[in-house]
């Protein structure tokens, strides 16, 4: 077997990202989502009680969560005022599920654009006639989605860390974020969901004719996250570090499996037949 055509793959990635820059429908959501989820919403949640005064903190909302927290995480929180408790719990735990939306959405938007977009813009055939092998093409398209998804998710984690620490400082009185669960969340679960998002989008892409179609179907991906969010704030269950590592393992396995299957549905002969 000859060596992989890395230069060609890099060219595909660069070309796809150059096109993304030109397409507002694609890049705008990737900026707006992190800004809303990682800046505006947490700011609102942290600052609203501070601006409105103590009475505004609704302990009812965090009570169920507090009850579920393992002793190890509650340790050190006893001296917190209700407002501080609210800031720490909401930003560390209530908000955790939101963090996964960005990696999922970014990887599925980009995968849809780089695969379905190629059909929609009628450029797929030219690409298939290049010497890139099926695997090279597939890996390049996967990287187009995953690299930005991981970078944006890391960037939004840094942004979020700054926002909650700064906005929460007046009430909490110290740097309190990130808490322990965020490490597996950012570095294990988030990459897993972005890979799973990619896998699902790849499967959808073999059928979808337009970017919009692929995107709408891809929206389904957010449902499990919403489920986690609801369950957690209702006090049904809490995802600690070990559970998170376990869930991550499952999501990784599923994502990689989807990508494996996807490689077959996106073979050259399948792609050319569905142009």
């Amino acid at each position: 077997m000859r060596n992989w055509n890395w230069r060609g793959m890099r060219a595909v990635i660069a070309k796809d990202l150059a096109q993304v820059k030109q397409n507002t429908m694609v890049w705008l959501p990737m900026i707006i989502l992190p800004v809303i989820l990682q800046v505006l919403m947490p700011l609102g949640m942290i600052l609203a009680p501070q601006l409105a005064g103590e009475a505004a903190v609704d302990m009812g909302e965090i009570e169920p969560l507090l009850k579920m927290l393992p002793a190890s995480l509650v340790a050190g929180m006893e001296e917190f005022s209700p407002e501080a408790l609210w800031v720490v719990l909401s930003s560390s735990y209530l908000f955790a599920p939101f963090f996964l939306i960005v990696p999922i959405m970014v990887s599925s938007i980009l995968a849809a654009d780089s695969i379905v977009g190629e059909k929609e813009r009628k450029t797929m055939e030219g690409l298939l006639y290049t010497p890139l092998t099926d695997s090279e093409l597939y890996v390049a398209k996967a990287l187009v989605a995953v690299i930005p998804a991981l970078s944006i998710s890391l960037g939004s984690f840094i942004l979020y860390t700054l926002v909650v620490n700064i906005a929460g400082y007046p009430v909490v009185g110290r740097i309190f974020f990130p808490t322990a669960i965020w490490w597996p969340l950012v570095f294990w679960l988030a990459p897993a969901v972005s890979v799973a998002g990619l896998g699902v989008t790849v499967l959808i892409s073999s059928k979808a004719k337009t970017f919009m179609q692929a995107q709408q179907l891809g929206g389904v991906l957010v449902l499990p996250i919403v489920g986690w969010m609801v369950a957690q704030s209702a006090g049904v269950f809490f995802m600690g570090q070990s559970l998170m590592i376990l869930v991550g393992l499952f999501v990784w396995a599923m994502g990689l499996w989807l990508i494996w299957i996807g490689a077959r549905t996106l073979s050259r002969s399948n792609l050319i037949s569905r142009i």
Partner: protein
Amino acid sequence: MDPIIVTEKLSKRFGDNWAVRDLSLSVPRGQVFGFLGPNGAGKTTTVRLLNGILEPTEGTARVMALDPALSGSDIRLRTGVLTENPSLYEALTARENLRFFGEVYGVGQMLLESRIDELLQRFGLLERADEKTGAYSRGMKQRLAIARALLHEPDILFLDEPTAGLDPAAARAVVDMVQGLSRDQGHTIFMCTHNLVEAERLCDLVGVIHRGRLRALGSPADLARQLWHNLTLEIDLHGPPSDTVRNSILNVRGVEDLRIDEHLAIVQVSDADVTPVVVREVVSAGGQVYAVRTREHGLEDVYFALEHEEVDAGQEGSVNA
């Protein structure tokens, strides 16, 4: 010389439909091969099979001695393809398009930029090289797509309907360019077309495909000869010929048929050497010869004759090779 493309009973089926069936042909290196056939005949499918983009259902192919089903990537490295649709990235400029394909095809970084400039120059696109190709006219897109197919100096150039949708001037420019490529650079060119005039002008070898099957293969002149062994003479006598004149024509060895069409005597002769004999006999029989023309059959006649054969065969339910 070694053929650069050989296929042996190459076949491709989609569902119940054989897009290509038992295609056996061979194209010598350096020739312009014209692949003719109506819509849906299987031309594009054949190009895809030869480049390893589709896998054959049956049969084999060798392109530059490689099997497209196994070594597609190595073949594609040495072929350039102009697809039916120009397949350009319209959000990128002409230069960016060429740079992208150059990198994918492994054209060396140093060489690439000069190659790009040279091609843009040659195809008259240099002034608008940094414009997005979405703003290009159909003709400009086609020229850029051809430039792209040539970027890595391929051994075989596949052109799928290179003049479709172009105005006569632009089509002419493309034809001239193809002619130049084969004459000056010795490229092997595999050109799908339904433009018979173009094929006749450009091609050394022509294959006619219809409903997936190869119906004829040869040089345009060969094909005409295969179908019409004889030559047609039109002798202008400015009036119907007398019986003496008629008989004098019919008595010449090599005359196969005589028809009178108003003032023309239309004579089928077995070959060109019979012509002066016929003329001499007509004159000595007292005929007034105003003009003699020979009518050769062109690719167009071949094409429609094959189409008819197909229709007749279909109607009679008999198979006609």
